[in-house]
């Protein structure tokens, strides 16, 4: 539906393809049929408010949640029907940086970053040591291999988490709220790191965030998720000039009208559903 303005090769098959993806927690459906493609080498930012389903979408993309229906194609495999072994194999080509870093507290930064290499490769320790140095250097954490995560600042933890996600030289890199809880200067540093990674390795990068400034800086294309549905999908320019009321509301930071009565809320929900189907 969109023609990207950036140097992404549309002739290549997409890195990730979502087709009518539905995800439920128990009885409650969180994602109501999400469809879009992520091209190889592009940075896609998934935008959305709290409870919009963007985190669930990310968790599903990395295989932490199984879809109830629909398809997710990554490297020729459908995540909806994939076996555990195949998923584990696929995961070696994907790296994920979690919101809080999710570094293992009982291990040093070096052990954290080297862990995927030790687990999945037969490399000798000296080789792992060299790769570890390279990865830490890439994220600007040289010399911190013997520190424990608890001794690092928030921004450094995120960088260490990125180094760990990079350990296996993934083709697709996922970020969950990379700048959440960081001061603007540190957050800008993380944005720059993402841009550098993209430039240096031509990785496909998926970022979930609600930080608009950061999103517009790093994204090639964006998708806005609201109440489990794709509201808009397009390049940063298309988003900026979009007239879709939900996009405008999100980008111009307009507050939701206060919900005073449960009935009003239900009415609002149904109206919105009609709106998005039209």
């Amino acid at each position, binding site marked *: 539906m969109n023609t990207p303005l950036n140097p992404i090769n549309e002739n290549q098959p997409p890195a990730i393809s979502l087709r009518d993806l539905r995800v439920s927690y128990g009885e409650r459906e969180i994602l109501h049929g999400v469809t879009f493609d992520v091209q190889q080498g592009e940075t896609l930012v998934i935008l959305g408010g709290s409870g919009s389903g963007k985190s669930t979408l990310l968790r599903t993309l990395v295989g*932490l949640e199984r879809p109830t229906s629909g398809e997710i194609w990554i490297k020729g495999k459908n995540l909806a029907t994939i076996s555990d072994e195949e998923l*584990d194999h696929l*995961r070696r080509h*994907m790296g*994920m940086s*979690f919101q809080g870093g*999710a570094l293992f*507290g009982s291990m040093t930064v070096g052990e954290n970053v080297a*862990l995927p290499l030790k687990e999945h490769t037969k490399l000798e320790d000296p080789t792992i040591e060299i790769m570890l140095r390279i990865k830490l250097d890439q994220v600007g954490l040289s010399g911190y291999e013997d520190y424990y995560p608890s001794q690092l600042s928030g921004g450094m933890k995120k960088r260490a988490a990125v180094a760990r996600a990079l350990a296996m030289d993934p083709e697709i890199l996922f970020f969950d709220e990379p700048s959440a809880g960081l001061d603007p200067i540190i957050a800008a540093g993380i944005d720059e790191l993402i841009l550098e990674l993209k430039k240096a390795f031509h990785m496909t990068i998926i970022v979930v965030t609600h930080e608009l400034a950061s999103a517009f800086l790093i994204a090639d294309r964006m998708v806005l998720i609201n109440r489990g549905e794709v509201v808009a999908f397009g390049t940063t320019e298309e988003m900026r000039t979009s007239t879709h009321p939900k996009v405008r509301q999100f980008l111009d930071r307009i507050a939701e009208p206060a919900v005073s009565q449960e009935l009003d809320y239900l009415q609002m929900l149904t109206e919105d559903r009609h709106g998005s189907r039209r």
Partner: protein
Amino acid sequence: MELAVQIGQSVLNALAYLGSLATLSARAAYYTLVGPFQGKPVRFQRAITQAMQVGVRALPILSLITFFIGLILALQAAYELKKFGAINFVASAVAISMSRELGPLITAIVVIGRSGSAFAAEIGTMKVTEELDALETMAINPTRFLVTPKFIAMVIMLPCLTIWANAMGVLGGALFGVTKAGFTFLSYINATVDALFLRDIVSGLIKSFMFGVTITAVGCQEGLATGAGAEQVGRSTTSAVVISIFLVIAVDLIFTALFFFLGGQ
């Protein structure tokens, strides 16, 4: 009708829970015994660290508690035995009740308090901070990586601790025996050795092995089942302790009954 449904539901839940414990234990056994031959090595370094934590660090408190228990047993037994002029049977009373029952049980309870709760807290915290998710996205199986070393540490250390606990209990009994029942230290130890059969000790050790499996399974299962939020870690820890104590006593009953009927005594 309503009541019957509720009871049925509770029974089903309890069975499902026991099933999840059995699955976790079976997986850990698989990763210990089969995994290494399929290129999935066990983290022995981690198992040794855990064994230090579970076993060696528990020694001071366990020694003190089982020494007191031995002394209490001697006092209680002497109260009754004195009436029959059979106070010299104190040594065998202490030895048999320690090695068959109280040694394994007290050890298990100390270890639940120290390590079962710690397992639940550690894994629960990792769940809350997305570390378990991180393991999965790195294609590292949390059961192999986290749970298996704990099982290895526990099933090795708990029988070892139990032997130690038995010895400390006997020493506690000896304190009474030597000071109040006319034994010398050597004669007390001789009386203890004479009273014990190998099967008394072995049955205690079999129990303690099963306790080790139970405590680790419950601690890890509760940790893995932790919900979102820090307060859930506290809840997991509490239920790990309560469920472990209950199940250890249930397992104790089952094995004691088994030994009783199989042993024909």
